[in-house]
């Protein structure tokens, strides 16, 4: 069975720690403890429910702590009768009966038993239920504090990450008898002071008779308690269809005092993992990736789940009992702290889940721990991967580095892990990791596979330049918008820091690519640190993009969903939002904190009667709304175009993002290229001057530089592959490459097409120009043109191709929009017009070698 001896794999890094901490407790090993303590043995014995395994004492699997021991003390010895738990209970029995032997045993196996001894001693003091209650409450406070530490810890993750590069990633790990795959959901022990070391019953007990047994149980949809069918009054024959609520809950709802049946004296009801999770004594996490550290310990990157109570909104009426929220909070967790699998399903799967074990949960939303908003999972997964990384401090390159440690052969082997280095230490204060809590920022490891050769070969300067010029990369610094960002910061701070938090509205405008959205988001990011530091009161932040809404009215839905995690129709959402903002009715716990609403592409929300904009902009004026609206759009005079009652609400405070001038563009590009020797200085200046003269669009300037780098890279690689020689020159991007990129981007291709089109098309175009000069009218008909063409042809010795052929030529030119024309069915009545200035045609056709006579007519 699982007790087959496995060779303990002690990690080298752990050893010194162990020896040092166990220096005091070097007591001789008890004869019972033959095997190293392992969870696998317990797991198997749990499964072998009916077989009574020899009751040999086994050490505790997880650290006991004060709380848990208090609870343990409460748990009566009668539990031994429960067959499913024989082994552990027997151990407990023994330990309580014979504390000396336990301590001996403990000390032999666990290095940190010194603390344990103390704990055991503590646990002998009689515990009253009241005490337990207070402890629990404390724990919750603990928890709240911890959320903050989690977030803070993720900040210094980057430096640590670099140190441990030699990781071996696995897709599936068999760890202590349980198989854990990437994508699984697991229960995770909380830190040691939580009562994670309690019994871990797999089988739930009946709430009435407190026995598990094989008899069918029915679950109350309200309190999730299980009841044997026969224990109910009146007893049920079969599991009822639809919702079923137990008698206790029914009575409670009617306002009666309910006394739940208490277990027989001395026997305490065992809590299942589910109950613990929902009372936040445990955590659940989603495995994102698993790996082995250098020292041989196994870790996984977990994505936390949260129970509704842990969100700022608290448990809301629409939350289901088994509902969890996925968060955007990641942590590296040691495998050791996994308790076992749980199953977090999306609503569709949940509805179908027929086997309904006790460890099934429902998850529909992702909860943003920074902004306290909700996002539906289906939206994140199915559509484009939205940029939730936007607020990550890690930039892309470093996260790629982290991946570069992955084994070359990504055939994920199943590896049987014989792991001993086992004990969670009680030394640290964060999650249940045995190391110092290592938290990592928001990365998307595993979203894609980067081909191997990228990792192998070292990037050239040009490739680095290309990567850093990507629009997607969030630059480390945002130059040239300091003034605007200060203004936004001042606006938000001014709005939030007042105690009453008056609602306000800011209108940001500017042409595309001038950094409007980026600046606002950067300000929000900076403010987040201040919130974390406590200098600003917490607020929630909702971001909506007008162009991504199916219809303007849907904005209510999106806002409400982001604030509450509940999906309703837009009319209902409008009603609820009105209640909240206009009438000042605060329903949920987090409702009284200020809310910042960022609406990108505001002009898309303009409906015919402009009611959507009016509603949204009306809320901030209400006394208790605590709503701050930041609207972003391109046009400067949007407020003036709107109804006066809207512009009076929106147009008061404005911020203009002017187009960048060439110095600013130059600074933006150079700041990105800092430390990369790929561009000549004049080349950057040339590109920025060109863009500044045309649009002042930073995106365009970056794209030109990237394209220029691409062209240079292309030339370099082609020449080296063709001639099989080392590339000549330094591979700097110079003026010529930038020139080529600008040409490609700004010059319409029509001149080139005209130069290279067929002979008849050239004659056709010449005739168009000739006709234009002759009549002075911009448009002509096909009949007139055909006559002109035939004149031109006969006087210059060309064969006239025939009317129908000519019609075809004209239609082809129309297809590529060199000329504008009506459908060809109109034949001689077809109207024609040049789409480009006649000078362009003249320029393109004048020097033609095949048809030199064309120049006469141009």
């Amino acid at each position: 069975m699982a007790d087959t001896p496995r060779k303990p794999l002690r990690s080298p890094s752990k050893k010194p720690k162990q020896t040092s901490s166990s220096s005091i407790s070097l007591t001789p090993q008890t004869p019972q403890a033959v095997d190293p303590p392992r969870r696998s043995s317990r797991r198997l014995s749990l499964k072998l429910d009916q077989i009574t395994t020899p009751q040999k004492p086994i050490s505790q699997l997880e650290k006991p702590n004060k709380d848990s021991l208090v609870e343990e003390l409460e748990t009566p010895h009668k539990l031994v009768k429960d067959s499913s738990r024989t082994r552990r209970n027997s151990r407990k029995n023994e330990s309580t009966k014979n504390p000396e032997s336990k301590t001996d045993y403990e000390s032999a196996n666990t290095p940190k038993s010194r603390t344990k001894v103390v704990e055991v001693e503590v646990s002998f003091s009689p515990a009253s239920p009241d005490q337990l209650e207070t402890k629990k409450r404390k724990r919750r406070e603990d928890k709240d504090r911890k959320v903050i530490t989690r977030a803070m810890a993720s900040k210094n993750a980057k430096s640590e990450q670099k140190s441990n590069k030699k990781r071996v990633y696995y897709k599936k790990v068999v760890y202590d008898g349980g198989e854990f795959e990437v994508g699984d959901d697991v229960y995770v022990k909380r830190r040691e002071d939580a009562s994670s070391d309690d019994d871990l019953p797999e089988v739930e007990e009946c709430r009435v008779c407190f026995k598990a047994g094989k008899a069918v149980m029915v679950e109350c949809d309200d309190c999730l308690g299980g009841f044997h069918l026969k224990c109910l009054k009146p007893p049920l024959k079969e599991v009822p269809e639809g919702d079923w609520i137990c008698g206790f809950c029914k009575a409670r709802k009617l306002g009666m005092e309910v006394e739940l049946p208490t277990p027989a004296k001395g026997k305490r009801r065992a809590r299942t993992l589910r109950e613990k999770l929902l009372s936040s004594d445990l955590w659940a996490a989603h495995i994102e990736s698993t790996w082995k550290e250098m020292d041989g310990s196994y870790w996984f990157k977990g994505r936390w789940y949260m129970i509704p109570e842990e969100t700022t909104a608290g448990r809301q009426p629409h939350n289901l009992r088994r509902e969890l929220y996925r968060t955007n909070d990641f942590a590296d967790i040691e495998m050791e702290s996994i308790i076992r699998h749980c199953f977090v399903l999306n609503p569709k799967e949940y509805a179908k889940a027929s086997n309904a074990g006790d460890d099934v949960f429902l998850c529909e939303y992702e909860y943003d721990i920074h902004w306290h908003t909700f996002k539906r999972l289906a939206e994140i997964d199915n559509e484009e991967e939205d940029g939730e990384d936007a607020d990550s401090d890690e930039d892309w390159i470093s996260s790629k580095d982290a991946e570069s440690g992955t084994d070359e052969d990504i055939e994920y082997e199943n590896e049987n892990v014989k792991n001993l280095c086992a004990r969670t230490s009680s030394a640290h204060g964060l999650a249940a990791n045995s190391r110092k809590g290592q938290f990592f920022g928001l990365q998307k490891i595993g979203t894609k596979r980067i081909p191997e050769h990228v990792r192998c070969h070292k990037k050239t300067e040009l490739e680095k330049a290309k990567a850093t010029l990507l629009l997607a990369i969030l630059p480390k610094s945002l130059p040239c918008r300091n003034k605007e960002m200060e203004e936004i910061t001042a606006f938000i701070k001014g709005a939030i820091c007042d105690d009453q938090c008056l609602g306000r509205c800011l209108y940001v405008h500017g042409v595309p690519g001038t950094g409007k959205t980026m600046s606002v988001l950067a300000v929000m990011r900076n403010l987040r640190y201040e919130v974390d530091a406590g200098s600003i009161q917490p607020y929630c932040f909702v971001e909506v993009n007008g162009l991504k809404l199916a219809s303007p009215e849907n904005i209510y839905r999106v806002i409400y969903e982001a604030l509450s995690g509940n999906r309703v129709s837009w009319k209902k959402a409008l009603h609820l939002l009105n209640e909240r903002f206009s009438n000042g009715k605060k329903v949920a716990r987090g409702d009284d904190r200020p809310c910042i609403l960022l609406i990108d592409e505001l002009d898309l929300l303009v409906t015919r009667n402009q009611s959507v904009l009016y509603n949204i902009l009306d809320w901030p004026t209400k006394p208790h709304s605590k709503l701050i609206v930041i609207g972003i759009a391109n046009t400067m005079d949007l407020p003036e175009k709107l109804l006066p009652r809207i512009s009076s609400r929106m147009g008061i405070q404005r911020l203009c993002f002017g187009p960048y001038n060439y110095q600013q563009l130059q600074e933006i590009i150079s700041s990105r290229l800092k430390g990369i020797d790929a561009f000549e200085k004049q080349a950057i200046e040339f590109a920025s001057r060109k863009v500044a003269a045309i649009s002042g669009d930073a995106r365009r300037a970056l794209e030109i530089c990237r394209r220029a780098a691409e062209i240079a890279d292309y030339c370099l690689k082609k020449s080296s592959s063709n001639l099989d020689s080392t590339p000549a020159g330094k591979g700097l991007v110079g003026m010529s490459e930038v020139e080529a990129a600008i040409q490609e981007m700004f010059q319409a291709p029509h001149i080139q097409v005209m130069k290279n089109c067929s002979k008849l098309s050239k004659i056709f175009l010449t005739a168009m120009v000739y006709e234009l000069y002759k009549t002075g009218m911009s448009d002509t008909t096909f009949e007139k043109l055909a006559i002109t063409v035939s004149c031109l042809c006969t006087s210059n010795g060309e064969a006239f191709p025939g009317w129908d052929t000519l019609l075809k030529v004209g239609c082809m030119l129309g297809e590529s929009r060199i000329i504008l024309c009506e459908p060809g069915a109109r034949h001689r009545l077809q109207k024609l017009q040049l789409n480009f200035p006649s000078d362009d045609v003249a320029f393109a056709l004048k020097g033609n070698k095949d048809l030199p006579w064309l120049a006469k007519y141009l």
Partner: protein
Amino acid sequence: MGFQSQVEKAKNLLRTRLCNPNFIIKPLSDSPDSNYCKLKFTISSSITEACNNSILLVGPRGSGKIAVLELALNDLLQEYPDTISLIRLNGLLHSDENCAFKEIAKQLCLEHHLLFSKMGKQRLLYSLLDAMNTVTSQAVVIGVSCRLDVDQLLEKRIRSRFSHRKLLFLPPSKEDVQRLLEHVFSLPTDSSFPHDYAAQFNGKLQNLLADDRFKEIISSYLDLNSTINHLVRFLFIVVSLWESKSGFLSLENFKSALSSIQRQPKQECIKDCSILELYILVCMKRLEVKEQNSYNFNSVMKEYRSVHDSFQTSDYYAWDVCLRSFERLIQRELICFTDNRAHGQSVEFRPVKLLVSYVELQGGLKSYRSCPIILQKLMDH
């Protein structure tokens, strides 16, 4: 193996080649300046360097945009078999945004390439390009269009997010055409054909390619439209006209193919008209010359009667017969109604216009076998 079957086999081979765009495009894609190389480099570097790109392929219809793209994508799919997934959208098929989104969802995997012809609605492009500007997604959007001003059609916000890679597809040069002809028509000299036949065939082909008359035929054909697709269509007709009796391609095949493709359907349509229909057309022309811009069947009939009264022609038909031939002319699109509203008004009152030019009508009358002389006279005055 008989001679005939060899010829049949050669014919089949040539036809197969002409129907395979990859084969046609290949010889034009080996130089580093070719669009194929540039496109492949851009896509593969965005895959290997994990960046996002959007590329626009622009060029006249039939210039081989899709063929080059397919060739590049096929190569890349073989190079990176499990990193690329391809999503194809077509502006004509997925004109509705929701429909396009559904199609994307259907075809989506983790990484994706998008290929869609014809720029669709702007919201779709905005979401696509905006998503591409975030770190978490990786995609290459490839747009294909024959309109040269596609990027001007984009809304300003979308244009700002578009990365403006543009590849222009131009017709092949004369040397390229020559190379292409040789590539398409020469038989392989390996064991698939008897050696002497293949050698003889290729020798005759070389003579043909060097022939000035041949060059003239090709260039006069390409005068009309010099795109690759257009040329291939011509070559297919040539192969079809190649008779098995003569074992080799001849200049005659090319000549007859040219004359069969350079036809003037409108003028030929006049040849098929009846005498009465010719009368109607001529009367309409006379009305137009009289600067009656708007006329209908009744006014045409008045003119017809006056012509008949003044010249006493032998071809006078009853009103309803004339109406029937008038309707036939409308069906053949030699004449058309000038108003688009067709509610209820009967044919004889709706204004009409002539759809053949006077020159074509005159040419048609001249080549008409038994055209009454009076008609020609009426045409002139």
